[in-house]
């Protein structure tokens, strides 16, 4: 069926709106701020959103499948904190890493099981499991908020690696983005994520293993959280579990949502994560260069996001055909 002709305005999805806003801020900053358009600064921008981006990749896989994982930041901080604490207590690196990985896998499995089989809403399951992970690890396994990496540990060396002058975070982010893209685009289970997210009942009726796939998605998000945590520790040579109380989790959802991945599932991809991350990165960098006070930064950030959402709502109004059950 041929599509009816559309004006350009009509083709403006939220993704494109955000892309245009990003390009506009980028252009303005490049013209007005002398130190903005340098290789060093642009690398710094990408690096500043690498960890956020990796978290957002994991989150996007879950959200496209019509779920949400609010335990990611807790898993990120606590798994790595526990790993470093085990090392500090004298455990061998292999054993400590294996334990930490097993812990991460367990959290992913429990999240997935409760959502897929017990059919508890994901938002409650992961909110609770995140608090549990934080509370348990913080109270039982580590003595302080911050756990330093041992001197000379491979993480510390990883953090100082600069192949071709580019921080290692950027490579890891790029590699994981590629893996996520390949998974969602080219693998059978990746394609199923969209079907299951768009219409889980139809997907199951068509014979897709909807429940095991759901478990897999939470395991993926848990492991991407662990990767993000390792990178954070590599750069800071320690991990501070206070990050669990920060706005990082909402920033992750923000990157995913503003990039244009609908929270109702079935839509979007890695490209949206990249656009969302680019907007946040360029915006924060510009505001830091201009030296805007924190309170105004929050105001500007939220205003731009609201504008993107409102414009999207005006151009692409929701109706019975586009609205989905379970929209949040």
């Amino acid at each position: 069926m041929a599509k009816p002709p559309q004006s350009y305005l009509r083709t403006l999805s939220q993704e494109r709106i955000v892309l245009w806003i990003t390009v506009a801020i980028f252009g303005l900053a490049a013209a007005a701020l002398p130190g903005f358009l340098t290789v060093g600064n642009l690398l710094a921008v990408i690096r500043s959103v690498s960890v956020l981006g990796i978290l957002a990749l994991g989150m996007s896989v879950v959200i496209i499948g019509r779920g949400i994982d609010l335990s990611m930041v807790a898993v990120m901080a606590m798994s790595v904190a526990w790993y470093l604490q085990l090392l500090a207590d004298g455990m061998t690196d292999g054993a400590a890493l294996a334990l930490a990985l097993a812990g991460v896998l367990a959290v992913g499995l429990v999240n997935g099981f409760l959502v897929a089989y017990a059919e508890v809403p994901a938002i409650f399951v992961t909110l609770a499991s995140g608090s549990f992970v934080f509370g348990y690890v913080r109270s039982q396994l580590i003595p302080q908020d911050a756990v330093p990496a041992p001197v000379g540990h491979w993480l510390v060396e990883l953090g100082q690696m600069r192949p071709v002058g580019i921080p290692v975070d950027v490579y890891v982010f790029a590699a994981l983005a590629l893996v996520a893209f390949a998974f969602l685009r080219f693998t059978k289970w990746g394609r199923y994520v969209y079907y299951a997210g768009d219409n889980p009942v139809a997907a199951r009726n068509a014979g897709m293993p909807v429940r095991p796939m759901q478990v897999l998605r939470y395991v993926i998000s848990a492991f991407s959280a662990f990767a993000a945590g390792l990178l954070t520790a590599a750069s800071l040579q320690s991990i501070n579990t206070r990050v669990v109380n920060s706005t990082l989790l909402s920033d992750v959802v923000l990157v995913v949502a503003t990039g244009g991945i609908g929270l109702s599932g079935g839509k979007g991809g890695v490209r949206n994560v990249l656009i969302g991350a680019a907007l946040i990165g360029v915006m924060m960098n510009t505001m830091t260069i201009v030296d805007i006070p924190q309170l105004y930064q929050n105001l500007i950030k939220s205003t731009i996001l609201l504008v993107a959402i409102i414009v999207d709502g005006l151009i692409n109004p929701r109706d019975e055909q586009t609205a989905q059950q379970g929209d949040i």
Partner: protein
Amino acid sequence: MKLIKTLAGAASVAGLMLSGAAFADSDPGPAEYAAALNGKRVVMVPLAMGMDLAQGWSAILQREVTAFGGTFETRDPNWSTEAGAQALTEAISSDPKPDVLIVMPPDLNSYSKILKKAQAAGIYVLLLDNPANFKADAYFGSDWTNLGALEAKAAMDACGEGSSKKIGLVQGDEVNATSLFQYEGIMKVLDADPSYTVVAKPVSNWDPTTSRTVTTTMLQQNPDVCAIIDFWDGDASGAAAAIRDAGLQDKVALITTGGGEQAADCDMIENGTYTAVVMTELVREGGDLVAMIKYLLQSGIEPGSTSAYIYTLEQATTKANMRPDSCWSLKALQSMNP
């Protein structure tokens, strides 16, 4: 007659000597001390228990309060203002209510009303390390304006003549008194010398990753910065990472402030991560705190009727003036309480 007088005199002297000996045997001090302090309940509500300062104070208080027969408890709000308020409210209405509350307020105003209520209920309120708009029975900790001034002077020393004289700040947040007053102190000193400029003053929200990101940007924009002042050693690891990443360890001095714990501060000065740290003398501060608790509980002073600032002596510690006892060790303090 003379004999009788002599005998009487001898007897009275002997009597005096006897009664003197008896007096030496019964010092009224310990009994009064025990009566005033025994069974008293001291509750500490820090910002969080997961940091070196809170754990250090708590180790000292635990030992001392237990020794005078009181009970010492801590509540862990884990950086949440609401959880802290709840812990305070719960403590005030508990039975038996605490006799002394030791509080680190998260900002200038949030706890003021609750703490006034505590004083009205007959509880001494001691503020610890973070000032608030509230007349506490005593405040212990840093004079943050002075602390900021010391940091600024350390930064100017590190920059020196012939340098760019450009300084970057990484503030904590925009509500906590420690950040606001620290900023004020820094700016007072820097404003007094117009040859120095502050290139930027972003906020880290006490988070090391944010500190790294903003410091990276600051160094990108101003590669000739000669010193950065980060407002807390808890997030200065981020600024340190940014300086390291930029390969500017030898050119950019990093000045911060902290609790003076060995691993957090002195080791970091030793390995060159921090150029100077304005440190809290925590052990001495803990001693002051204990002395004030002992005094107030014996004094009969009405809670809320007097107020005092017990500022800790502060110094910018650098490699040059660091002594073996400049820092305290959390492990050693904690080992006092088996």
